[in-house]
């Protein structure tokens, strides 16, 4: 007696069709799972057996073999439990096999037969849609997520419920549409006092998608500003939102009650994070912080404190917008087109740029500190703003502009950048050439200034890049003192 059910395994972000074949024959009772299952997956044996027992169904006392095909693909995790249980039940004629073949299934089984959610339901559902299946059986917590993948989700709380549904005895209530996102308010720019230059740089960064480095002594509000970039960015486009949800689903960070993401993601990993945590990795590669920040903002607070390999690994996604994690079994590609905001002190003792303190760093210590940031990485920052410690009277300044009007200006600027190809006037070109001669500005620095100038022109609503835009962009160039 043979029966099949279908589910999907994830390779990186890609769902791969997996057929779960259960075969029951006479002989010494036993249960074996074959097909390159990892430990969590092989342990399904015990969960499935207990689950079937708890659902008051019959465990066939025969020789049961479950094959996860294709056998060459490594299967990881507990998401195959439900499919295995259903395949065994279909093979023992307890549920109709033909009806099971019309459904995909994903979920982990508890010993009492309840169905638990697993990560990646969105991607599995997408795989089911591509495989031509219209319905997916999953835990109620995963239902919203799976619906977003384009198939009808059948939420089942218990294995018995799945069986009743497949026998046609029960029609579970359809998955509730995801509740309109009632997301907590984002931190607002109005909380930031003073900091006119850094605010302006943040606006330019938002409009042009530039990476921004904020340098300055501690307590000047660098991190506070960085955290508020998301509040002035436009919401995600539907296509972008799908990409973001796929990554977040695979990483298991998609909130089950409102999986629909509209806001740009914001990730701020701690500086002790490993290279794999930042760019992704692991035996069965999982997306890292850089990918979780896809289409959003990655904030690296205290940039020089990060491990250098982790920072260098970020150069690939900053350049190509994608992380490729190579493994013996193949390569996983994770999209990682994020906007990088970083903060740093000006020296290890944090005394630099602070009139109230004196820097006590030796030349060597300072050089070692600056050595941590390679030129190549610093070159990825279009905007660099050094924030000196404000005086007391600046902090007493009246509340500043809030995020909403800035967001409108940013949206207008973005539209302008997309609609027209802004060109530099002859005078602007002349100013840029003069600056290259006069200031320490490399060839790469020149093109960064040109990019920022274009954004400044778009924000100003000009039809071309004028000298004033180039002049402004020059004020945010990378200062020579940041590099060793």
């Amino acid at each position, binding site marked *: 007696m043979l029966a099949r059910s279908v589910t999907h395994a994830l390779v990186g972000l890609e769902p791969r069709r997996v057929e779960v074949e259960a075969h029951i024959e006479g002989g010494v009772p036993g249960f074996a799972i074959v097909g390159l299952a990892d430990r969590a997956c092989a342990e399904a044996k015990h969960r499935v057996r207990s689950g079937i027992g708890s659902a008051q169904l019959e465990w066939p006392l025969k020789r049961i073999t479950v094959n996860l095909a294709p056998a060459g693909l490594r299967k990881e995790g507990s998401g195959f439990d439900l499919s295995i249980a259903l395949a065994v039940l279909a093979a023992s004629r307890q549920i109709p096999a033909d009806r099971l073949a019309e459904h995909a299934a994903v979920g982990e089984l508890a010993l009492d037969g309840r169905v638990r959610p697993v990560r990646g339901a969105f991607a599995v559902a997408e795989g089911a849609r591509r495989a031509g299946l219209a319905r997916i059986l999953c835990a109620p917590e995963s239902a919203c997520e799976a619906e977003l993948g384009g198939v009808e989700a059948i939420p089942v709380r218990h294995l018995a419920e799945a069986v009743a549904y497949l026998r046609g005895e029960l029609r579970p209530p359809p998955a509730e549409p995801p509740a309109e996102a009632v997301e907590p308010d984002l931190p607002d720019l109005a909380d930031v006092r*003073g*900091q*006119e*230059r*850094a*605010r*302006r740089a943040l606006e330019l960064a938002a409009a042009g998608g530039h990476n921004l480095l904020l*340098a*300055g002594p501690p307590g000047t509000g660098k991190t506070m500003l960085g955290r508020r970039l998301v509040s002035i960015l436009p919401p995600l486009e539907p296509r972008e939102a799908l990409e973001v949800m796929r990554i977040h689903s695979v990483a298991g960070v998609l909130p089950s009650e409102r999986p629909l993401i509209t806001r740009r993601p914001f990730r701020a990993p701690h500086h002790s994070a490993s290279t794999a945590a930042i760019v992704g990795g692991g035996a069965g590669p999982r997306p890292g912080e850089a990918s979780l920040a896809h289409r959003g903002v990655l904030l690296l607070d205290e940039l020089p404190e990060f491990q250098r390999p982790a920072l260098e690994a970020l150069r690939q996604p900053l350049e190509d917008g994608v992380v490729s994690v190579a493994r013996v079994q193949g390569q996983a590609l994770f999209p990682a087109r994020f906007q990088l905001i970083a903060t740093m002190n*000006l020296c290890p003792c944090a005394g*630099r*740029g602070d009139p109230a303190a*004196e820097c006590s760093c*030796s*030349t060597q210590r300072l050089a070692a500190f600056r050595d941590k940031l390679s030129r190549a990485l610093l070159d990825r920052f279009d905007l660099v*703003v*050094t*924030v*000196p410690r*404000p*005086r007391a009277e*600046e902090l007493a*300044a009246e509340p500043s502009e809030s995020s909403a009007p800035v967001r409108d200006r940013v949206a207008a600027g973005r539209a302008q950048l997309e609609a027209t190809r802004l060109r530099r006037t002859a005078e602007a070109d002349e*100013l840029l050439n*003069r*600056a290259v001669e*006069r*200031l320490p500005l490399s060839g790469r620095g020149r093109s960064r200034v040109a990019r920022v100038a274009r954004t*400044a022109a778009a924000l*100003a609503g000009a039809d071309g890049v004028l000298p*004033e835009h180039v*002049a*402004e962009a*020059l*004020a*945010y160039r990378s*200062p020579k*003192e940041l590099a*060793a």
Partner: protein
Amino acid sequence: MNELTLASFAAAADLHLVGEPRGSRFAAFKARFDPRAELARLAALDIRFLARSDPSFPELLRAIHDPPPGLFLRGDADAELLARPAVAVVGARACSAYGRQIARSLGRDLAGAGLVVVSGLARGIDAESHRGALEAAGSTVAVLGCGIDRDYPAAHRELARQVAATGLVVSEYAPGVEPAPWRFPARNRIVAGLCAATVVVEARERSGALITADFALEEGREVLAVPGEITSALSAGSNALLRLGATPLTCAQDVLESYGFAAVAITPAELGEPAAAVLERIRAGPAGADELCRASGLAAGALAVVLTELELAGTVSVEDGVYRAAS
């Protein structure tokens, strides 16, 4: 070419020599040494040797207590450059933004007026004074404390190249001599010896720049010091010099007068209304962009435009986010 023998022997034996030693080692070396072959080797490296006995050896340097046997020269300028009126601008390697700014503008003004700016190619004040002189398209001389073929510190290789392109890099040490702690004080006597006046821009209590000042005083040369904040440890040494009677330096004119040079009047560029107001505020004291924003009433973007204009005109400079007026 006895001096060349002496300089080469010093390099080979890792000794610091100003006079001929009497030992047998030197005698043996002298017998073996072929000055012509050595000169050819130097020429291949694009290095010249200026012996102490050469008539174009700078008189001021010859007059010091222990003049070097000769100088190795690297660079496009004529050896005559060393005989021109020169001023040493020296100071600490670890210096403040203020010190850097002063060294740069002093280098610019002094070289612009026609003086040769002499310094030691070290980090901090030394490098800034060279850069200032180069900016003014003036002449500058870098005195090394290691073999003439070395660029020390390595980070200043490009600066050394620029100095050599219009001025001279000199050393009393033959090619191949490693930098060593005791060679830098010896180098300082040459820096002070080449110049009629030495300016100490910023120095800690026990800075090498004070050694240069001591050499200058011993030889009866003029010593000037730039007054620093009395609370700043970075200026403790230069302020101590002032207490001992060094001439306070408040502008390049103070040096130029003692040489009988007229300062080159720099005509200030025409500034627009907001730029002039911002410049005035910066002249009143160093300030960050946000403070200037509030003082001028300009939006951050418009202020950035003004500040870049001022920076390109050379009237302000920025470091660590703080804008300062160039003196």
